[in-house]
């Protein structure tokens, strides 16, 4: 593992507080409104508190009312968006209702500035979001979008490497397997990477711990647990709510937090012990992760969402160094901290578990669990520092929903393109075998193994289908039970660059198909919306279009979004925004793991059949990028999607989703799993378009005796070569070598 501490100097360069208010992200009208509501000039601490709570990051002020369009409830939903994670019904086992906790976030800005720490703390944060729901954390996923990383000296390459190393270092150390994820390399991310993270947890439904203080909690203790508060991550919420400026890199680094997975690992296990104690005593309490806005943001949201106020003594906070300013103690975003609201009678026992049994003070300097205040009946948020009141505001003003109504302009429709041009380009392909070689070596198609082999995918001993083997990863989360959980992610930036709405729709469709392909039943979705500057009407319009796409996709499939995140300001100083990136995760349930569909390519003589609508549009495909084809995105018949799933589930053998690289790449990868024993002879006369188009449905394996369920693409052969419709031929082993090696230069 990388030594974190020696890297501290890189990130501890704190923003000067003396230039104080000038650095606030609050706009003049917002400042005016705050002062007016308070009836006085706010204190410095209050300024920083509102700066964090009213930032886009915490308040969702430009997105909240639009997100309301997404479906968020349904029979499978136990808890929709609103708390630190969503919760989905997994199934019953021996009289117990099991549930899957899921959270999905981005850590884009920090990862662009300090990739290793930024991505690692992304994992840390998402894990705590799931943990604080009373869940055991069972899996991670990491949808990543990097710039052109080919030049090893480029920042894009160091971001692509550093972020993966950070995810690997944190996830491996805490012992949570990486189950799913994807990665794309696209020029649109040269200046703004996307590091999305997803975590899954397992909990029994009655044992869910909520992110709010329950009824009758006035006088309860507020207990801070974890790392000693330091000056790292001061101003993180407002930092991620602004545009990155390269000239600001150094000052931005102060806003990134310092990861400590070692402490996180102990905190998780100690928290599991506390959960067990709460179960034994039948107690309902509040528990919440400290994220944006630090102690202030977490304690205020924990109390206000239960209808209470809070009184916090900043002097009681375990600080890493003396003399920290009250605003740093209050809103600094030091990692590895959580906050409990506990009835007084169990406080001593909880402190004993953290501080003695799990010896937090010996694990990291000044780490501990400590009472820092109490829940109050009066709905005010009051902070004390050295005997003085440094903040005293109406708690609902602080955490209540503020909103920005921003101007929108409709997305510009792309001019229609003459399909004859594409047909001419396709006809000009000299050798389909050579095209296949370019396709499989393309960075968006090539094997992801060089990346994910750095991730522990099997810790906990519950992995059934590890990442990379099939379209989704699968776990057996409950020892002794046949219940399984599947996870997949999707969100194609080549599509996003062309059409935000269709790309979002297709992200839903692809994530769900991936879960269906392994034989699981999709039960719920999460989304992370990564977009540019909402104050640029055309960028804001893309965001709104994406919500429409997500909504249409999810409604057609009768699925809900139970957790999500919006990340704006993914644009460079020159105003170049990332491709519209609505990234979707889909959770699947498997009632009997022995019915899972494991990937295979069948035997010699079997048919490879394409099922699903196949208009053959090449827009946004890898082939289009290689051949210089400009077309619209493929259309998906959402109305037929559920029937397609049923059809695929009904076909007994293997099904693989057609994605990047089209059916050609899908079939090649099916063959790569067959130990170079098998090949394919594509159907003579088959249109090249059919093999290259993406989002076309599934490739299924069918014995030749069965009537084909769709277009017969080819027949499995016993000689390990691929024979194309134009009679060109390539050895499976040669293609596999290209496919395997393509990312090795970035991830040796």
């Amino acid at each position: 593992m990388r030594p974190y501490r020696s890297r501290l100097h890189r990130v501890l360069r704190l923003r000067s507080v003396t230039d104080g208010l000038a650095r606030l992200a609050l706009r003049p009208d917002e400042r005016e409104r705050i002062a007016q509501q308070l009836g006085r000039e706010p204190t410095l601490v209050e300024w920083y508190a509102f700066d964090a709570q009213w930032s886009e990051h915490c308040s969702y002020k430009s997105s909240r009312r639009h997100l309301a369009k997404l479906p968020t409830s349904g029979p499978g939903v136990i808890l929709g968006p609103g708390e630190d994670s969503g919760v989905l019904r997994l199934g019953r086992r021996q009289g117990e209702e099991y549930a899957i906790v899921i959270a999905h976030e981005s850590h884009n800005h920090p990862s662009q500035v300090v990739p290793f720490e930024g991505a690692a703390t992304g994992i840390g944060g998402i894990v705590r979001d799931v943990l604080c729901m009373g869940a055991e954390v069972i899996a991670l996923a990491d949808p990543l979008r990097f710039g052109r990383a080919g030049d090893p000296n480029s920042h894009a390459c160091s971001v692509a490497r550093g972020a993966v190393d950070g995810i690997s270092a944190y996830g491996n150390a805490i012992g949570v397997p990486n189950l799913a994820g994807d990665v794309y390399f696209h020029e649109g991310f040269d200046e703004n990477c996307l590091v999305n993270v997803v975590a899954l947890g397992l909990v029994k439904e009655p044992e869910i711990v909520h992110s709010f203080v329950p009824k009758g909690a006035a006088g309860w203790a507020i207990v801070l647990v974890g790392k000693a508060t330091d000056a790292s991550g001061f101003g993180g919420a407002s930092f991620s709510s602004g545009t990155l400026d390269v000239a600001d890199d150094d000052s931005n680094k102060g806003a990134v937090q310092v990861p400590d997975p070692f402490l996180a690992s102990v905190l998780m296990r100690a928290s599991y012990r506390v959960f067990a104690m709460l179960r034994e005593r039948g107690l309902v309490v509040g528990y919440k992760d400290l994220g944006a806005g630090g102690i202030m943001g977490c304690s205020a949201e924990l109390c206000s969402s239960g209808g209470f106020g809070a009184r916090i003594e900043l002097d009681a906070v375990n600080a890493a160094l003396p003399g920290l300013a009250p605003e740093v103690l209050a809103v600094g975003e030091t990692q590895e901290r959580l906050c409990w609201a506990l009835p007084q009678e169990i406080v001593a026992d909880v402190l004993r578990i953290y501080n003695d049994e799990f010896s937090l003070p010996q694990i990291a300097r000044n780490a501990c669990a400590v009472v820092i205040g109490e829940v109050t009946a009066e709905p005010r948020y009051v902070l004390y520092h050295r005997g003085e009141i440094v903040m005293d505001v109406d708690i609902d003003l602080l955490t209540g929903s503020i909103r920005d109504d921003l101007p929108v302009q409709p997305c510009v429709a792309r001019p229609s393109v003459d399909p004859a041009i594409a047909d001419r380009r396709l006809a000009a392909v000299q050798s389909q075998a050579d095209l296949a070689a370019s396709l499989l070596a393309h960075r968006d198609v090539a094997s992801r193994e060089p990346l994910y082999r750095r991730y522990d995918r099997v810790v906990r001993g519950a992995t059934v289908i590890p990442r990379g083997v099939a379209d989704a990863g699968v776990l057996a989360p409950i020892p002794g039970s046949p219940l399984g959980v599947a996870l997949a992610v999707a969100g194609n930036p080549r599509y996003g660059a062309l059409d935000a709405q269709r790309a979002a729709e297709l992200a839903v469709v692809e994530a769900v198909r991936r879960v269906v392909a392994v034989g699981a039943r999709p039960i719920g979705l999460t989304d992370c919306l990564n977009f540019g500057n909402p104050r640029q009407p055309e960028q804001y319009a893309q965001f709104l279009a994406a919500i429409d796409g997500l909504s249409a996709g999810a409604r057609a499939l009768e699925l809900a979004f139970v957790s999500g995140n919006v990340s704006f300001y993914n644009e460079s100083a020159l105003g170049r925004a990332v491709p519209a990136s609505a990234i979707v995760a889909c959770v699947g349930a498997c009632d009997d793991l022995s019915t899972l569909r494991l990937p295979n390519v069948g035997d010699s003589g079997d048919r490879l059949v394409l099922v699903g609508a196949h208009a053959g549009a090449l827009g946004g495909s890898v082939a289009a990028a290689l051949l210089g084809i400009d077309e619209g995105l493929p259309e998906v018949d959402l109305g037929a999607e559920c029937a397609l799933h049923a059809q695929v589930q009904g076909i007994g053998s293997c099904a693989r989703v057609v994605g990047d690289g089209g059916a050609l790449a899908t079939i090649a990868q099916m063959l790569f799993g067959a130990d170079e024993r098998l090949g394919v002879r594509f159907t003579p006369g088959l249109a090249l378009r059919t093999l290259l188009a993406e989002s076309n449905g599934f490739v299924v394996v069918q014995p030749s005796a069965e009537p084909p369920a769709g277009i017969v693409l080819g027949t499995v052969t016993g000689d390990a070569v691929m024979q194309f419709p134009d009679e060109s031929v390539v050895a499976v082993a040669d293609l596999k070598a290209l496919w395997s090696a393509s990312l090795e230069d970035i991830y040796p």
Partner: protein
Amino acid sequence: MNRRIAVLVFPGTNSEGETLRLLRDLGADAQLVHWSRPQELAAYGAYVLPGGFAYEDRIRAGAIAAHDHLMDAVIDGCAKGKLVLGICNGAQILLEAGLVPGTAAARRPTAAFTHNAPQPHFICRHVYVKLASAPMRSAITASLDEGALIPAWAAHAQGRLAAGPEHLAELVEGAHVAFVYAHPDGRVDEQAVPNGSALGCAGLVNREGNVLALMPHPERDAWNVNHLQRRVGEALFAPSGGAVLFESFVRAVQRA
């Protein structure tokens, strides 16, 4: 005899859950013992050190944990002939504690599992380990077949055996190399070694044969549900594959 097995939990240990589960599924009387309760260890008859990142691999993987109070009891128990199995980080700790190969004094290591080569990165890869010493060389491997091939997952950044030439020679001469990396068909060559380990070594045993240190994790491929190629109709949670090593360990504990 004392058949109780303690699974040690250091700060940073992360594989205690599946390790405990497998031992219990194999009929063992096993418990977790945390770092804050080292005094409890003496009451156990055998020890298992599971995987993880004890003390976050500071200095070198296992180096700090080797000096933890938990290891006082293990060093003491080892001298009394108690059986000790270390997997991954547990193996690293046993080497750092000098218990394996055990040719010098306790806490005077003569070999280490250290940074992978040629690439120093963490690697997670399915592997096979092959029993390279006679089964009876160690009580822990006594129930295995000669040359047993065991599926496991390598998941480590520091799994390369390194030692000075005289100590490497000692390992060979003393038949300390209990397991080597192998291909699925049992062939042994450099391509099968995921981390550049000297002698292709995956696991080492001490002179007396009561302490075994193995880098890859057989317990992560230890139930039918973990095997991609399982057959329909098999009980999902019947121990299999990598479980054979643990089974052999549990039998040895019950024999002792």
